[in-house]
């Protein structure tokens, strides 16, 4: 087989794996958009905040240590203990539920009935708020996240492909774990929304707010629930991203790529988010591989957005989105 083709295949595989990570972030967007019609720009920041909280709790950091030290002139930074990973994940999950509750109570409650675009801007405000709040709470250095996931090159794939083609593919173990976790997460979400009472209520709200209200479903509870679930999804995405590249605030900008993923897949479709993520992941890797060297590289910065833009011109509702009907 020609070498270029082999390289392209390897790039495609790695693109698929990167796409899984985009899809994980996009999933959080879709959940919130379906249930409340809010386009949550801050989802990427939730991912960073969740991951930071996890690392902070795990390594026993004192929250706001920097601020406390500045005000009171103390020199504290760590409690001096480390928390087991499982416990830390639970604490971080609880923190995300708390965040969901705060967002619902202090922001969304007061914005009911406002135009969608106002809510969208409010989430940009939340993005900015957390951009300052997260480093204030946990410090601004790059944090190393280690929850004991397998990392490094997958030897089995390397040797197998070497046996087949005479060229070993480089696939990170972590990417494989991420793909499995994503599959499990989506299955769990589907099961939850199909077979539990809350899940059904959630789908009812997504379908029609007022009809759901009239049969006695508490909108406030559903919103807290859905933001909490989005928080959990953010936590999972944060663990994956963080294990791969360390936790820092600039991760949120990478997570913005979930937006073109959504546009491609349609805002209201969970399968759309997954498939959109895979398309973007593969597309940008292949583009960088084929065209990148000709134009100076680093095309990942914009390829996803331009692809989504071009795609939307032909199909404004995305791949799986509901048809947009406009009436006067």
């Amino acid at each position, binding site marked *: 087989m020609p070498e270029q083709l082999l390289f392209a295949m390897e790039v495609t595989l790695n693109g698929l794996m990167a796409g899984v990570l985009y899809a994980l972030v996009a999933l959080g967007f879709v959940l919130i958009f379906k249930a409340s019609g809010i386009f949550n720009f801050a989802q990427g920041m939730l991912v960073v905040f969740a991951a930071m909280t996890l690392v902070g709790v795990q390594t026993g950091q004192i929250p706001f240590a920097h601020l406390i030290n500045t005000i009171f002139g103390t020199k504290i930074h760590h409690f001096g203990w480390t928390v087991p990973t499982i416990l830390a994940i639970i604490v971080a999950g609880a923190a995300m539920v708390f965040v969901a509750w705060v967002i619902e109570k202090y922001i969304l409650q007061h914005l009911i009935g406002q135009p*969608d675009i106002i809510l969208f801007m409010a989430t940009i405000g939340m993005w*900015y708020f957390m951009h*300052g709040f997260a480093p204030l709470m946990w410090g601004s250095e790059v944090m190393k996240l280690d929850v004991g996931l397998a990392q490094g090159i997958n030897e089995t794939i390397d040797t197998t492909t070497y046996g087949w083609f005479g060229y070993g593919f480089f696939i990170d173990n972590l990417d494989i774990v991420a793909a499995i976790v994503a599959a499990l997460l989506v299955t769990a979400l589907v099961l939850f929304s199909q077979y539990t009472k809350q899940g059904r209520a959630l789908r009812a709200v997504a379908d029609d707010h007022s009809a759901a209200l009239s049969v006695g479903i508490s909108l406030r509870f559903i919103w807290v629930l859905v933001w909490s679930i989005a928080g959990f999804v953010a936590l999972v995405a944060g663990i994956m991203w963080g294990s791969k590249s360390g936790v820092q605030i600039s991760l949120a900008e990478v997570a913005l790529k979930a*937006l073109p993923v959504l546009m491609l897949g349609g805002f209201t479709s969970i399968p759309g988010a997954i498939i959109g993520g895979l398309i973007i992941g593969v597309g940008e890797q292949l583009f960088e591989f084929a065209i990148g060297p000709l134009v100076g590289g680093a095309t990942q910065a914009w390829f996803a957005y331009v692809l989504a*833009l071009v795609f*939307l011109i032909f199909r404004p509702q995305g791949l799986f989105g509901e048809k947009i009907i406009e009436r006067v």
Partner: protein
Amino acid sequence: MFYREAGDFKTSYRDDNQTFPIRLDRAGYWIALFVAFCVIPFFVNDYWVNSIFAPFFIYAIAALGLNILTGYAGQVSLGTGGFMAVGAYACYKLMVAFPEINIVFHVLIAGGITAAVGVAFGLPSLRIKGFYLAVATLAAQFFLVWLFNKVAWFYNYSASGQINAPERTVFGVIVTGPNTEAWAKYMICLVFLVGVAWVARNLTRGMTGRKWMGIRDMDIAAEIIGVNPLMAKMSAFAVSSFFVGIAGALFFAVYLGAAEAGESFGITKSFLVLFMVIIGGLGSIFGSFAGAAFMVLMPVLLKNLLVGTMGWPTEIAAELEFIIVGGLIVIFLILEPHGLAQLWRLTKEKLRLWPFPH
């Protein structure tokens, strides 16, 4: 008591439709212009110009531009930083290529080039609406910044990848480069700002502006009553990008003097200008000024208070700034979605009745 229409007789349609219908407002406007042009330039020093006046004027131009697009025509854009970069790099290329031509023309042509780019990226707005469009404009932001970072022609193959403004003069006065006097910087920004604001005000109260507002309020309905959505949306993108391009050119040439696309025109810049428009008030000329003033002054005050007075590290001050700005955005959207401009309007309504409210 003084703030009344009473006694101010309007005898023509022209008088009736003027921007400031109340005598006190008119006087205030002329006094503000007089102070800005004839008093402040004699007293400003480098600190005041560099940390307050120049950024305020330039961001006010950018905010006016974005307000036309988002506030008047209803098209949310997150690509302001990218369009400012177009203005900056176009201005740089023109300044280097045609040194004999006056910089004022360079800035205006840079605005024109930005307008063309803006229209190109605005074309999808005919099919894509709402959030979809907001995300689509991110494509402009990331693509343009990447372009100016990667294609060496734009920064004339300089080793650092930066662009540096060469020294240029207007009527014999140096306005760009490191030897610029504070007042010269101040004046050139002010002249552009007043020009842009005048054009913006008169566009938005005429037919063009009404078409934009029709499109904003409901595009299909506007189309039915005879507004051509292609022309309305494209003109909004063109005018908006023209202003934003001017702001970008001034930001680079006059204010910074040296710029690098990713650092000076990143996505944070887009957010910053959007926040100015939201806090100031969507669909208001005065709001663009108020929002820009607020977002320029607030960090300066915060920094002076925390770092200067209390001796806190700059890092914490920067983080607190994010928190305060984000919090304010949310609070404004909850309490007063129409921003500072609406507060100003309410104050004026109250003043009209004061001191006898009944």
